[in-house]
């Protein structure tokens, strides 16, 4: 029997028992509005394709990764350097998570702007919100499984947030950590979440999400003025797909497939060029020379925690996320009918622009975190040569103290150093010597008081040096007293009389 007949015979054998081909061809051929075969409609399927890839790479990694606090870090190193192609699968999985979160947000923005969540697709949106939370949950738990210093201290941050809950805070901390402190159970617990619990929920809700898309049909491309009402929408949609519809496959699916192909190729290339994420230093909490940072998609939250006014912090940390999540879920019930087109929904456009610029700006701030002291600046960032040329011995002594007293951790000189406090390059134009003395000794405006840690002689030297920090063309700030009436030692040191 020729090969073709063999294939047909095998196909028929299965078809007789499964009877799937009619269902599948029905699904493939279901009519979609001609207008919705748009390049704007490709992000959901691309997110789905990345999810499938995450499952494949995740299972592969799980065959080598050791989910124990003792062995996790070394198994990651083994994956990176010894296991053939381990580095590449780790890179695919890590970059895949960034791709998935990114595509998901774009998909969500598109669905929101195109009013696709409105009647009768409310449940599709709600399922999508569950998928959003699960995907972010996967991103966070995945970061924990990369069990390095960032993971360890990231867990500490998570526990500290939860610990702020009144009354039950410490119980919740123990529940999350699986014990009183970050240890073996903590990693095992996050492993179970990352590979069993959350993926299980994800797969279930992806199925529901897709089923609803098939059942209710793909959202038509919104036209300004076409109002969604509960009375007419279903008939209108039916008319659109029967009158002006096209079969989903290949008419709409081909664009999805082209875009998904591009995304997969992009992921393959990016992962190959950039390699895997970490692991950074081993998760030994006694190595405290560490600057923990979350992964890219949580940097904005990291920034929020630094920038919230302290008095509002606990309240906003605990109440803010539930409110935002509740609003997301409630959206289709708040505006379930009416205009779909973003051209007639200016507020929705403003919301999307605001959300993306806010999160983008916070992420950008998170990448260099100006609020944190630069822990090594005092020993790593040298005093610029120009700032020590032609200075007196006392002023030079001050320059040395600026380094050794760790002032540079918060104050930049010549563009190097912390950004927690103002740069000192032209401090003399802003503060008089007396004001500098006061600021150093008493602190204030976020600066600690150094009164106990500096001798008067040291303060004198520092002020003498800082008093030279002004452009040649601009005089330093002065008190409004006559030069012959010096008001302090510091002033007299610099007065022309000497």
């Amino acid at each position: 029997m020729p090969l073709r007949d063999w294939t047909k015979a095998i196909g028929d054998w299965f078809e007789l028992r499964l009877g799937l081909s009619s269902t599948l061809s029905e699904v493939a051929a279901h009519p979609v509005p001609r207008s919705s075969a748009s390049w704007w409609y490709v992000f959901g399927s691309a997110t789905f394709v990345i999810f499938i890839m995450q499952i494949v790479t995740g299972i592969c990694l799980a065959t080598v990764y050791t989910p124990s606090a003792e062995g996790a870090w070394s198994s990651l190193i083994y994956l990176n350097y010894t296991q053939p192609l381990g580095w590449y699968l780790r890179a695919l999985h890590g970059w895949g998570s960034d791709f998935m979160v990114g595509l998901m947000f774009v998909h969500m923005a598109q669905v929101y702007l195109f009013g696709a969540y409105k009647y009768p697709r409310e449940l599709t949106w709600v399922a999508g919100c569950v998928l959003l939370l699960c995907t972010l949950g996967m991103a966070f738990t995945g970061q924990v499984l990369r069990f390095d210093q960032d993971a360890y201290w990231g867990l500490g941050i998570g526990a500290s947030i939860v610990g702020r809950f009144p009354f039950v805070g410490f119980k919740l901390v123990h529940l999350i950590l699986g014990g009183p402190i970050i240890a073996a159970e903590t990693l095992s617990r996050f492993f179970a979440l990352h590979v069993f619990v959350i993926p299980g929920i994800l797969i279930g809700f992806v199925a529901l999400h897709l089923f609803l898309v098939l059942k209710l049909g793909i959202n038509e491309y919104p036209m300004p003025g076409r109002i969604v009402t509960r009375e007419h929408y279903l008939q209108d949609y039916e008319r659109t797909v029967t009158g002006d519809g096209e079969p989903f496959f290949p008419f709409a699916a081909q664009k999805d497939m082209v875009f998904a192909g591009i995304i997969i190729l992009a992921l393959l290339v990016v992962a190959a060029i950039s390699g895997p994420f970490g692991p950074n230093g081993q998760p030994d909490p006694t190595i405290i020379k560490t600057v923990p940072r979350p992964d890219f998609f949580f940097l904005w939250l990291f920034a929020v925690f630094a920038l919230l006014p302290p008095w509002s912090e606990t309240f906003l940390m605990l109440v803010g996320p539930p409110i935002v999540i509740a609003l997301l879920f409630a959206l289709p019930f708040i505006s379930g009918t009416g205009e779909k087109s973003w051209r007639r929904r200016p507020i929705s456009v403003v919301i999307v622009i605001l959300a993306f610029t806010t999160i983008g700006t916070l992420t950008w701030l998170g990448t260099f975190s100006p609020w944190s002291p630069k822990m090594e600046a005092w020993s790593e960032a040298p005093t610029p040569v120009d700032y020590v040329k032609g200075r007196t011995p006392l002023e030079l002594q001050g320059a040395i103290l600026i380094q050794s007293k760790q002032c540079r951790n918060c104050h930049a000189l010549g563009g190097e150093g912390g950004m927690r406090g103002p740069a000192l390059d032209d401090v003399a134009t802003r503060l008089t010597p007396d004001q500098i003395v006061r600021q150093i000794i008493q602190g204030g405006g976020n600066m600690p008081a150094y009164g106990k840690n500096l001798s008067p002689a040291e303060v004198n030297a520092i002020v003498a040096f800082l008093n030279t920090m002004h452009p040649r063309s601009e005089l330093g700030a002065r008190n409004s007293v006559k030069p012959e009436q010096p008001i302090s030692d510091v002033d007299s040191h610099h007065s022309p009389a000497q």
Partner: protein
Amino acid sequence: MDEIVNNKDSGAEESTSRRTFLLRLAVFLNAIAIALFAIPVIGYVLSPARRIEWLRWIPIGNLSDFPENETRLAEYVNPFRKPWDGETSKIPCWVRRESGDNFTIFAINCTHLGCPVRWFAESGLFMCPCHGGVYYADGREASGPPPRPLYRYQHKVEAGRLWVRAGELPTLGQPQA
């Protein structure tokens, strides 16, 4: 299912047919079975939160390890250590010896969000690398977002050794001191 049974009931005017009895028995048995299954599962999952007391006295070094007027990094082994904890069983803390037997022992965790604070002896400050929290040598908050001074451990000097009472991650919900 209920509906079918009820229809039959009303139609046949039977108070307890064999069918309704079996169905009720099935529901009853499975409700008990599910409860008996759920209790151990939920108890297992919630077990870390059931225990209240998680502190033990642990030695962290000889007195001679800690010079007076200095703040030194010390470490202890988590008293609830398991062999597969790996490096995470080592917990650091800051020991400040004012004089003689006068110690203050700070947890490593920033009171803002738990990052490891670092001691800078020259400026006499603890600085946090995450969100810019700064504390004075005595643990008071000096700058940034921390809502309270550094957490302290209970401690005692016994037989020439320094002991701390520890074993739990200090958070605002359960500060040790």
